[in-house]
């Protein structure tokens, strides 16, 4: 199996006339954790949402270029297929408020109308919740509504929901910015586990987090990909002066 799973070629994204992501070229190897960081408004979230084509849901938003997933251009695939293969977790935990915890985990199947035997559903739920270290906490309250959980638990539930679809890539859009420090560290620990099976792309504005969890880091500034390197290299010896300024806190 080749090592590059996601590759963007001359990717550009716009909101109307506003050019927010400029000509990004990046190669992401399989089973790694990539942190995408940069000051707010630098286009990092837009780029992330471009990967599974969530970007285009916003009225007036357009994109150009290629995003290759296993050497196939997701821009030419139907978004439904893209999103089945690339899961996403959002900034704020967003479990479906009308569904139970159990149903939230298998939401991708249930709401897509895919009927599975009960045993298989149970297995998916248990596996997914175990993978996000939530099984022990919720196994006795699977029928309760997802919105009864704490913020950190809700976020892990959302990760379980994405994991249940068995995607190849998981996108995280500032997954811990709405969480307290303890929940944050739980989620960060998860990243190390999840990396074994998936490729993780994590947008964060928190440099410490990027340094803690990622193998490689991409630094965005003003819509451009300024630097992309191994995390260690990036934080100890950045090549670009803008990266250097950013990680030393000269601007934010």
């Amino acid at each position: 199996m080749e090592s590059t799973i996601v590759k963007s070629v001359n990717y550009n994204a716009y909101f109307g006339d506003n050019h927010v992501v400029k000509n990004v070229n990046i190669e992401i190897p399989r089973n790694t954790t990539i942190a995408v960081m940069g000051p707010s408004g630098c286009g990092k979230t837009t780029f992330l949402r471009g990967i599974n084509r969530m970007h285009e849901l916003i009225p007036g938003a357009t994109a150009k270029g290629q995003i290759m997933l296993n050497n196939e251009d997701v821009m030419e695939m139907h978004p439904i297929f893209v999103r089945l293969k690339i899961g996403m977790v959002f900034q704020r935990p967003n479990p479906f408020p009308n569904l139970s915890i159990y149903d939230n985990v298998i939401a991708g199947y249930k709401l897509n109308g895919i009927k599975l035997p009960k045993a298989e559903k149970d297995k998916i739920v248990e596996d997914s919740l175990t993978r996000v270290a939530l099984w022990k906490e919720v196994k006795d309250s699977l029928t309760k509504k997802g919105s009864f959980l704490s913020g950190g638990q809700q976020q892990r539930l959302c990760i379980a929901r994405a994991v249940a679809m068995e995607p190849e890539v998981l996108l995280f859009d500032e997954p811990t910015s709405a969480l307290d420090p303890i929940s944050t560290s739980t989620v960060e620990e998860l990243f190390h586990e999840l990396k074994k099976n998936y490729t993780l792309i994590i947008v964060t504005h928190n440099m410490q987090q990027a340094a803690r969890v990622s193998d490689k880091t991409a630094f965005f500034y003003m819509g451009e990909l300024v630097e992309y390197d191994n995390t260690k290299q990036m934080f100890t010896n950045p090549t670009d002066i803008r990266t250097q300024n950013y990680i030393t806190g000269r601007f934010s």
Partner: protein
Amino acid sequence: MSSSIDNNLITRPDQNLGRVISSITTPVSKVRSTKRIKRSYRHIRAENVFRRTLVIVALITVVLVLGILLTLVVQSTLSIKASGIGYVWGHVWDPVRDIFGAYPFILGTLLTSFLALFISIPFSFAVGVFLGEYHPKGWMPNLLKNTVELIAAVPSVIYGFWGLAVLVPIVRSFETKIGVDPVGLGIFTSSLILAIMIIPYAASLGRSMIQMVPSNLKEAAYSLGATRWEVIRSVIFPYTRSGLFAGVLLSLGRALGETMAVTMVIGNTSLIPKSIFAPGNTMASVIANEFTEADHPVYLSALIELGLVLFVVTVIINMIGKRLIKGFTN
């Protein structure tokens, strides 16, 4: 390769399907993944149909309203041609001699509506101020709010019946006292009924407008030692003026178009009302009374022209009202 929105791809899904299959090679259980793919093809088609249905539905609403306008215009051309502009101020409505002047009904409509507005405004404003400023919370105001909303829920035919049975005799004895022709039925009785019916429209809008007044404005006035009445008069009223006016317009639109209650108590005569106690007719009540009796095309067409006038006037009034509300809430 450029792609704008999902739509672009949806309109040509088949082109993409070939590419997609090979890309689903995830190491998941085989059954599940084939199930998913099959589903997804169906989904893409259904999604297409759904999006198109939504657009068609939205288009139909536009067509519906244009159709209403067009129908009214087309069906009243006969009368427009026959009576011309004189229709509006012609004093005589005599279907037997084919003379159609709408002035008595226009006058009747304006009289009943504005009289009703005049009576109901103090009450509506009182409810608006009471619920918006004095008592925004609690069970008693809540009860009042729900009760006032119920006023709008009671069917107009019931108001009419009640008016006929209760209000008309009261008005008749009142008329005897002040020495006018004691008919009971008439413009005045209709206005009374209408006044009750239109209270909730201005009241609920007034309440929400008054609640939207920023509290720092009010507090500024209070801190200068203003009494509550002074705050209401010099801060709340000026601030919510356009919103309150919009509420009055919506009430007016309601009053102009109200048919059944008015038809039942106005007395139904095509003569020009001599006083507010005289019987008369409004545009809506004439249509209700005579539409099924209209035995020749010009007569029917003249009635529809009344409907057209009513439609245009109420649309304009409502549009102005809605604009004002929008301007206010922004």
